[in-house]
């Protein structure tokens, strides 16, 4: 097989003020004709920089210091922008992570597709429109006429990524580089988009270099995989082989870090049975948001974010709340703690209705860990100060000195040390920041902790460590968790019971062991089908049958 793309000994450096960062050091990679190769690694491993180097799209501070990138028979390293333009689009198509930013917001889809068609296929304006329409149909968009006239912001995330695929494919490139093409999408849409991408590539014989951090995506799509770490490829091989018998210890750690759906029964540690005593009870809770109205230039409208949700969380259990983006799970979490006012219903915490008495006692016993600690921590306060402040405020600490000591103890509990107390949030790594966020909540010794996607901003290996920490803390401090997430595998691995939210309504709640029961709601099944398992061979023989096999078992 001849290689479409051959990268050898590639090194890229970033010159930052005061430091030179070697983002890529001697990367070796090749993509054969019509082959789908996955480049997988954690954030900062250099995978996106490698992809950007191929198309000469490196940021200003970066520089290729060595190696070669061959496309077909041509050496791309050292070419000027004008010469590279010959290959951009026509020879190599690029699909970016976020179609919101990579599609031009000021032009309708039709003109963006049409311009690309005219540039690369040298067709007339009228023909270009035809080409655009055919391609929209090929990427599975039915109402092509509406979409051609639409602006990017008028389309859903999945639709935008389909358009992006059409845009990258219509010039008939030999190679498509897809940089985390589905990371910004919901799980159910992710699978459709990936299948579309694979289908098109197979049809036209296009090779695909897929950059991802998700081993499920690797398993679902690629025939070969390269694992990247700190700028070098540590392991490369056929997907089946790397996933089942990884040679490099790093690959093994990465794969083991990913929670697998259906892996719950395999977990050793038995949980103490939760006491049958509700700590949090929601009765017919609803929330409407008013949009528009006077002074906004838009018609007044009401969005029902949450409607008629009733559920109870028992003391000592982990309750998982899952749903797609926009299903109202974060809003529900905020309603439960009285962070935003309810439009309907009642919430009772440990027998007392929220809103009746003061919030002081409630705040101490009812805590949150937010999704992205980068924004949930105040950037201008030190970690120690952020933990200590609520302690004195809510009367948990006797004085400033006591608050400081308790803050240090909380930091130690989450695996940081006293030296970290004087640091600002930006001086921590992502995982450490989330630990500070957790320390801030548990320092108050709460009874109930709501975890709003606590690991979605983290790398897989960091995620595993944080999840382990959460389970340890729960046992140690006798906590009750409500975990919110969109990743069914994580929710399943953590929770005792699961509630599924869809469009603001709670469609069902069930014991986690009954996840695969045939009585599950269609929405739950859709979430289950969307999961891309790493070891597809475990449950069934082929990729596509795996979902169905599991349900039957």
């Amino acid at each position, binding site marked *: 097989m001849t290689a479409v793309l051959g990268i050898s000994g590639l090194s890229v450096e970033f010159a*930052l*003020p*005061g*430091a030179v*960062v070697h983002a890529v050091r001697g990367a070796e990679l090749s993509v054969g004709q019509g082959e789908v190769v996955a480049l997988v690694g*954690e954030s*900062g*491993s250099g995978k996106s920089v490698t992809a950007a180097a191929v198309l000469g799209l490196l940021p200003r501070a970066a520089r290729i210091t060595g190696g070669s990138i061959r496309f077909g028979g041509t050496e791309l390293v050292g070419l000027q922008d004008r010469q590279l333009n010959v290959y951009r689009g026509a020879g190599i198509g690029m699909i970016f992570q976020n179609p919101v930013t990579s599609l031009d917001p000021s032009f309708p889809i039709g003109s963006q597709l049409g311009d690309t068609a005219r540039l690369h296929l040298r067709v007339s304006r009228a023909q270009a429109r035809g080409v655009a329409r055919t391609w929209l149909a090929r990427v599975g968009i039915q109402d092509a006429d509406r979409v051609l006239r639409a602006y990017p912001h008028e389309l859903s995330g999945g639709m935008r990524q389909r358009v992006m695929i059409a845009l990258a494919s219509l010039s008939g490139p030999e190679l498509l580089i897809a940089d985390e093409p589905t990371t910004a999408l919901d799980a159910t849409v992710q699978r459709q988009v990936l299948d579309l991408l694979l289908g098109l590539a197979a049809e036209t014989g296009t090779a695909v270099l897929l950059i991802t951090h998700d081993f499920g995506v690797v398993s679902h799509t690629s025939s070969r995989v390269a694992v990247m*770490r*700190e700028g070098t490829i540590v392991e490369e091989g056929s997907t089946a082989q790397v996933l089942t018998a990884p040679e490099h210890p790093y690959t093994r750690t990465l794969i083991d870090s990913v929670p697998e759906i259906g892996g719950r029964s395999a977990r050793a540690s038995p949980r103490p049975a939760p006491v049958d005593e509700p700590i949090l009870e929601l009765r017919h809770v609803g929330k409407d948001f008013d949009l528009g109205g006077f*002074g906004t230039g838009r018609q007044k409208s009401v969005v029902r974010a949450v409607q008629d949700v009733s559920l109870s969380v028992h003391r000592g259990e982990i309750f998982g709340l899952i749903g797609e983006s926009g299903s109202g799970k974060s809003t529900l979490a*905020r309603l439960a*703690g009285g*962070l935003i006012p309810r439009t309907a219903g009642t919430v009772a915490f440990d027998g007392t209705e929220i809103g009746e008495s003061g*919030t*002081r006692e409630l*705040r*101490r016993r009812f*805590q*949150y860990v*937010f*999704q*992205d600690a980068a*924004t*949930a*921590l*105040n*950037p*201008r*306060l030190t970690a120690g100060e952020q933990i200590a*402040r*609520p302690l004195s*405020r*809510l009367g948990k600490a006797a004085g400033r000195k006591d608050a400081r000591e308790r803050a240090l103890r909380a930091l130690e509990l989450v*695996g*940081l*040390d006293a030296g970290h107390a004087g640091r600002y949030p930006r*001086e*921590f*790594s*992502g*995982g*450490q920041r989330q*630990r500070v*966020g957790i320390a*801030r909540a548990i320092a*108050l010794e709460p009874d109930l902790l709501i975890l709003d996607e606590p690991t979605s901003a983290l*790398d897989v*290996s*960091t995620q595993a*460590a944080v999840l382990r920490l959460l389970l340890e803390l729960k046992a140690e401090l006798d906590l009750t968790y409500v975990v919110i997430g969109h990743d069914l595998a994580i929710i399943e691995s953590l929770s005792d019971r699961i509630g599924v939210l869809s469009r603001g309504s709670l469609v069902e709640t069930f014991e986690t062991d009954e996840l695969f029961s045939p009585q599950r709601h269609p929405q739950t099944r859709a979430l289950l089908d969307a999961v891309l398992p790493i070891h597809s061979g475990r449950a069934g023989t082929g990729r596509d049958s795996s979902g169905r096999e599991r349900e039957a078992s």
Partner: protein
Amino acid sequence: MTTATANPPRLRRSAVARFVRNREAMLGLLVLAVVVLVSLAAPLLAPADPTTGDPADVLAPIGAPGHLLGTDAQGRDVLSRVLHGGRGALAVSVSSVAVAVVLGTALGLFGAFAGRRVSGLLMRVVDLLFAFPVILVALSLAAIVQPGVWVLIGTVVFGAVPYVTRVVFAEAKIEREKEYVEAARALGASGTGILFGEVLPNLVSSVVIYGTSLVGVNIVFTASLSALGLGIQPPAADWGRMISEGAAVLVTGNPGVATFPAVAVLLVALSFNWLGDGLRDVLDP
């Protein structure tokens, strides 16, 4: 890949190091330091009394014996007057901008966190203040109290508050939507606690930057008001006043009387702007 206890390297230099490397900012700071020192030490440095003239030695040229920069139409030493002339302008601009910054920050913060109606009302009032001719304020103030330092302070505060309010309002509105504010609420912080304990620290840098640039603008503005006769009154030495007096003799072959104070105003205003830009690079990376 970072483990829980390994620390990411500090890729940025410290704020001070970045400031020192910023050429404009350092130059601005240096010039300002010199101007402030000279203004403070003016009574010691000045070769002559800035307010008493010598009727026998009127409009001496630059480099005349005893008068390095010449004398003005009343025979007063221009060098001494330039050395003394910055004291009023600097004190007035810095203090009134400081007052305006505090007032504007309070109003902007309040507006951003108040309900929709209250904040709407407040910002429309601010719009009104923008539309109000500042010179009219100066004239009315001069009619109520005597022309002088208080007219300058009042006018600058009146003129600067709406700008600061708008800047702070816009920034605070962005901060308000950030998750850390919600987190603080979940951690039991009260409304005022969030305003001053959480949000204000995040606004300080932009307010300081903006305030620094405002001082530069208002040095020029107070000089103009003094030149119009609404500000610092004769016989006290003041750059603005000197420019207007010097303008009368500019065409008669004595350019120095107006030019030297004008250069001083320019230099100080420029320095404040450079300092403001430098601070932006340092504090708002």
